[in-house]
């Protein structure tokens, strides 16, 4: 059985918008959010990059119990899935007047699956609990010693050390379920009482593209009728350790000058990506018959998914882009679409030296000159495991509205591809492609068709 798979709902939480409307408005107006990294991170290391893209506050939306039970990556998954389900036309009713679980009226929960991606999972909770585990007893001992010290200079030095021993005030009894990557999909099954397959894919920066691909295959083959799919990432910790990891790997935008425009994918002066605190994107997929039968608004259609593996290096893209090229050719062939038919391509476009060069070369080899190309990461930075879902959403919105966003800070393009150079660029495109590449060597791509 091969069924048509349509997109009927979208939800997003990002540094440039807490919902689809805000996000898309920011995209079309070329708005970014770039700030200096938290000052406390500077106490622990020197970095080549000094900027990030922080998220809006979200804790206020949750009960005490939710904040205790879930890592932020799971909480933002819930926010976006709620918006996506509501935008798909489902009525969500709270179970009990103070309940934190929701009934999705009209959804066959046995025939619905959850397919989410995340790169780091609940790493934030792991780090804060590890800090408590390793530091708390020493802090108590040092605090006691401080009280008996007579020498002011020694006492000040010890208090300085104490202020740098940051940790959670307790070791959470829920740390295991907060840290496990599969919490990102499990939280949606629990909160919305979804009983179908429930899977989390952790494939670094390709996580959510692959999650959506797996959801697409499950709907297409009839394993489920509806899929809640996408990805989430939360990449902040008290010490800036995760940021440091990417910084040391040489992947982040250098900010020795002109910090706020340092994020410039596909520009000759690019130096790396803008680190994002995280984000989440969720799409509701349904088979065409199920969606039509309930009168759902169809926002677009997924017509293909393909993935390949470089088998080259854990951290470097293969210079020739041969496996990316093979992936795109297979994707188009299986969907019976020619390269000429593709009008829009949402690039992985990180802004790192090799990634952009290899990606631009492959696009140039395979596609026509008028193909519109942009990088959503030029606006909100790199949300790692969530980026594929957010970029899939941009692709759906671009095709649906026949308009797309600028490839921001692109002043001196590395090639003569048809990069989007202005805000709210009107385009004509019936088919769009969104692709992601990941540390490890994973390549994944989704093909979308405009709904007419």
């Amino acid at each position, binding site marked *: 059985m091969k069924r048509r798979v349509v997109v009927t709902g979208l939800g997003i939480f990002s540094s440039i918008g807490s919902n689809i409307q805000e996000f898309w408005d920011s995209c079309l107006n070329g708005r970014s959010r770039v700030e200096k990294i938290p000052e406390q991170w500077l106490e622990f290391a020197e970095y080549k990059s000094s900027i990030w893209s922080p998220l809006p506050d979200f804790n206020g939306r949750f*009960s*005490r*119990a939710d904040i205790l*039970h879930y890592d932020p990556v799971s909480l933002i998954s819930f926010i976006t899935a709620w918006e996506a389900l509501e935008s798909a036309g489902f009525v969500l009713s709270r179970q*009990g007047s*103070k309940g*934190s679980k929701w009934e999705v009226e009209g959804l066959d929960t046995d025939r619905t699956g959850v397919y989410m991606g995340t790169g780091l999972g609940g790493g934030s909770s792991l780090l804060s609990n590890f800090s408590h585990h390793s530091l708390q007893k020493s802090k108590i001992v040092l605090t006691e010693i401080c009280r008996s010290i007579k020498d002011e200079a020694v006492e000040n030095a010890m208090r300085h050390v104490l202020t740098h021993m940051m940790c959670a005030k307790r070791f*959470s009894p*829920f740390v295991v379920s907060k840290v496990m990557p599969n919490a990102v999909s499990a939280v949606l099954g629990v909160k919305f009482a979804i009983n179908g397959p429930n899977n989390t894919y952790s494939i670094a920066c390709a996580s959510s593209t692959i999650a959506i691909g797996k959801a697409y295959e499950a709907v297409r083959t009839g394993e489920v009728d509806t899929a809640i799919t996408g990805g989430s990432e939360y990449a902040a910790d008290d010490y800036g350790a995760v940021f440091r990891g990417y910084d040391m790997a040489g992947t982040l935008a250098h900010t020795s000058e002109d910090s706020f425009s340092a994020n410039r994918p596909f520009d000759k002066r690019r130096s790396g990506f803008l680190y994002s605190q995280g984000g989440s994107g969720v799409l509701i997929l349904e088979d065409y018959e199920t969606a039509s039968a309930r009168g759902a608004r169809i926002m677009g259609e997924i017509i293909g998914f393909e993935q390949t593996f470089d088998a080259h290096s854990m951290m470097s893209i293969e210079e020739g882009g041969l496996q990316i090229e093979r992936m795109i050719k297979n994707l188009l062939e299986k969907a019976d679409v020619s390269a000429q038919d593709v009008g829009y391509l949402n690039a992985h476009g990180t802004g790192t030296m090799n990634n952009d060069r290899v990606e631009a070369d492959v696009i140039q080899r395979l596609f026509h000159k008028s193909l519109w190309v942009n990088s959503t990461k030029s606006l909100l930075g790199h949300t790692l495991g969530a980026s594929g879902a957010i970029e899939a959403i941009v692709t759906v919105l671009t095709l649906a509205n026949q308009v797309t966003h600028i490839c921001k800070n692109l002043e001196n393009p590395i090639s003569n591809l048809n990069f989007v150079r202005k805000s709210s660029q009107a385009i004509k495109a019936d088919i769009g492609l969104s692709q992601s590449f990941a540390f490890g060597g994973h390549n994944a791509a989704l093909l979308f068709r405009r709904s007419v």
Partner: protein
Amino acid sequence: MQQTIEHRVTQVVKDVLEIDEGTNILNASIEKELAPTSIDQMTLFIALEDEFQESIPPQEVAGIDTIRDIARYIEEKLNSMS
């Protein structure tokens, strides 16, 4: 003060255990009626620690079973600190 602490404890219990606002839970048993699972009980006492900025070791609250008794325990603890 007793009423205020009782009120605050009641609010925390209702928030954490998702109990309707109008329900009178002051004399309800935590273990038998309100929070039958150990996860619920752990969540409740952590939330109470956060609310009152006091540690509540499990051995100290063993055997305390109603919301009124918990409020009394917390009041005594706060008084002993002041």
